[in-house]
């Protein structure tokens, strides 16, 4: 421990603590931009400079470690003047269009500008850096707003190991780019949207598709929505409530008021996924299929596997994701029962995920003869729609999801957290294999935020070894082991986003502290539900009896399973 003095306040902190962290401890807020609580220190924006007694130059507090007896001053006129100049230079390269920016009101640069009370005019001509890339269905990259903090490329490189973003050039002409100036759509980008979560400003944002939904509503289409498990965890947070506030009743009410004709629960098709995927696993185990089998719910993971591990594609489960299973049913089974023609249906899914926008336009996702899911709207976009409709989310009464796809189980509910699909599958597979009731449905070994989790489950004599990875960097490690033949797992769950879908790119801006709260919300919700195993969902049983036949049957194969393609060419050209 070392004794230091910050702005006259004495405090004791551990060796190696940065001035920024120490200042936080004594209640001093130093402005930051390139600093992110979940990332390594970059110290390139210089907005956090402070004065250290005995040092001639100001030092960046985010990277400068404390020493015994250090005396720091964070708010002298000199410090404030320098910070103000630094900010002015950043603003000179930042597009001045705050009012029309999707991060308006939720922008770190705005916050810093406001906190520092920077009200004078910028003395330099405002010169921004080139164009806007709207090629990707998921992520919009606007280099005119980029402040070159490097937080996006950090998460893309170090956490996701994707490497789709980099800086190009030097000095004044530096800009955010992809290798060889490629558009995001032509790059290795997996559409996971973690860069959006890391961006302090509006340089990386969600591709906004709300306009298309309004158009469909205006055109008199039968607009139906499915709502992913993670959405009920983060929607209230997106509308200003505390992280971890779970609410589906108010969510359904709000969506009805926005103009959706029917609101269904993707938990239902998550249960369906478990039925198909569980039986596929059993089939592979019993008939010598390719093992380990890897989950296929996550579209960013699928694209990552298609680009980086094309030779391992046979490991992927052939099951469509819950979104696409639901999409197929909504334009086949649902029209038969509701009397609405598939061509009149506009199917929207509400997702915590930006990669789902890419998934729904994959050409093979049209089992119904139409594009199965017409549009994907993220949590952030839905929150905008709710606000725009003048709905006060906090005061809404509760409404149930619409029948017949309104009932999901606790197993479907936990899909939103890392390890959730695995746990849900185990709950069902255990009972199918052993024929006995599973008494304790909580598989604690597969829960939590550890990067790669391993567990072994005894199915009455058959030992099933499982592994769970979240974050594509961890997935890469796991797949390298599979490739090298060093992994003897039977079943692997991969989610591209750190923490699983509750950490997805389409959610409100996150950090690990908020993620802890969201995770608590997921498992609390699971505990509350009367049915916690997918195969016990009565509507699942009904749909198999009435329509699908049996898991892995002919109809299932046609509607609920898919194929993958080798995309490794993306690296070559």
């Amino acid at each position, binding site marked *: 421990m070392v004794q230091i003095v910050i702005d006259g306040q004495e405090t004791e902190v551990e060796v190696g603590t940065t001035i920024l962290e120490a200042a936080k401890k004594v209640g001093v807020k130093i402005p930051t931009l390139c600093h992110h609580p979940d990332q390594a220190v970059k110290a390139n924006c210089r907005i956090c400079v402070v004065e250290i007694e005995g040092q001639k130059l100001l030092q960046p507090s985010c990277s400068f470690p404390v020493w015994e007896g250090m005396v720091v001053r964070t708010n002298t006129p000199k410090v404030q003047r320098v910070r103000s100049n630094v900010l002015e230079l950043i603003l000179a390269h930042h597009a001045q269009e705050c009012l029309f920016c999707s991060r308006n009101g939720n922008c770190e640069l705005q916050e810093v500008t406001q906190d520092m009370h920077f009200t004078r005019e910028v003395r330099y001509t405002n010169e921004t850096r080139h164009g806007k890339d709207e090629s990707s269905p998921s992520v919009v990259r606007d280099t005119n707003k980029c402040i070159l903090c490097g937080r996006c490329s950090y998460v893309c490189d170090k956490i996701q190991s994707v490497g789709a973003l*980099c*800086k190009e050039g*030097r000095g004044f002409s530096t800009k955010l780019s992809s*290798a*060889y100036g490629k558009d995001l759509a032509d790059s290795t980008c997996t559409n996971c949207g973690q860069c959006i979560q890391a961006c302090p400003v509006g340089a990386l944002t969600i591709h906004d598709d709300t306009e298309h939904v309004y158009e469909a509503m205006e055109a008199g289409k039968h607009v139906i929505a499915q709502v992913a498990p993670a959405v009920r965890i983060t929607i209230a947070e997106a509308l200003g409530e505390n992280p971890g506030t779970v609410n589906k009743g108010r969510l359904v009410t709000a969506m009805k008021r926005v103009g959706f004709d029917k609101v269904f629960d993707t938990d239902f098709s998550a249960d369906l996924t478990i039925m198909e995927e569980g039986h596929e696993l059993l089939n592979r185990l019993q008939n010598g299929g390719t093992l380990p089998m890897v989950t296929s719910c996550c579209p960013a993971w699928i694209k990552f596997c298609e680009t980086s591990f094309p030779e391992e594609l046979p490991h992927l489960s052939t099951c469509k994701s819950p979104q696409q299973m639901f999409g197929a049913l909504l334009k086949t089974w649902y029209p038969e029962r509701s009397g609405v023609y598939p061509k009149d249906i506009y199917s929207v899914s509400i997702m915590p995920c930006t990669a789902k926008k890419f998934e729904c336009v994959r050409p093979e996702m049209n089992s119904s003869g139409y594009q199965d899911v017409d549009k994907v709207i993220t949590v952030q976009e839905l929150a905008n729609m709710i606000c725009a409709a003048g709905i006060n989310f906090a005061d809404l009464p509760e409404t149930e999801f619409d029948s017949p796809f309104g009932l999901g189980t606790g197993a479907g509910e936990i899909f939103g957290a890392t390890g959730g699909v695995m746990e849900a599958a185990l709950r069902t597979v255990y009972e199918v294999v052993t024929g006995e009731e599973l008494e304790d449905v909580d598989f604690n070994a597969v829960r939590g935020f550890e990067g790669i989790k391993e567990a072994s489950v005894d199915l009455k004599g058959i030992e099933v070894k499982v592994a769970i990875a979240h974050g594509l960097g961890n997935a890469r490690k796991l797949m390298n082991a599979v490739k090298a033949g060093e992994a003897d797992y039977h079943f692997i769950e991969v989610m591209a986003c750190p923490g699983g879908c509750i950490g997805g790119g389409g959610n409100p801006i996150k950090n690990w502290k908020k993620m802890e709260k969201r995770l608590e919300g997921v498992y609390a919700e699971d505990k509350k539900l009367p049915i916690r195993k997918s195969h016990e969902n009565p509507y699942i049983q009904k749909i198999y009896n009435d329509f699908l036949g049996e898991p892995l049957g002919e109809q299932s194969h046609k509607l609920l399973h898919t194929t993958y393609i080798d995309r490794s060419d993306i690296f070559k050209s």
Partner: protein
Amino acid sequence: MNTSHTPAMQLEQVASLAREFKGKKDQLMLVLLKAQKITGHNALPEDVAVVIAEEMGVTKNHIYDFATFYAMFSTEKRGKHVIRVCKSTPCHVNKASNAAHMLEKTLGIKMGETTEDGQFTLEHIECIGVCDRAPAMLVDDEVYGPVTEESIPGILSKYQMQGEEI
């Protein structure tokens, strides 16, 4: 964006060079400088970056970031010989701009361009540390200075002849 294809033989040469430095990210500068020579165009087109990325275990975007940062690299095809005229102060006051104009006139290209026959690319460069020979320039790795209107044809012909021999 460079869409040209590098011959397979050169890509193999680059691959075996990069393989020696597998996992040694700190040696990227060295690898890129050598690779740029191998291509014969003084450039690091995308297919070359792909090979280096694969063999060294770095990402392509890191190579692009690196190559666009340093002036000695180019991601676009350049001439067989790169002429770099110093534009720093000591050279400037010793009339480097005259030399630059003379070069532009003789080669029929502007700064940053490449001659049609692919022999020369003309560029500016920051101080190369031979201020005593101002105005100075580099042709590939060779230093020349003081460069005068009179000395330019002689220097160029040396490289043009080299070109004819090959």
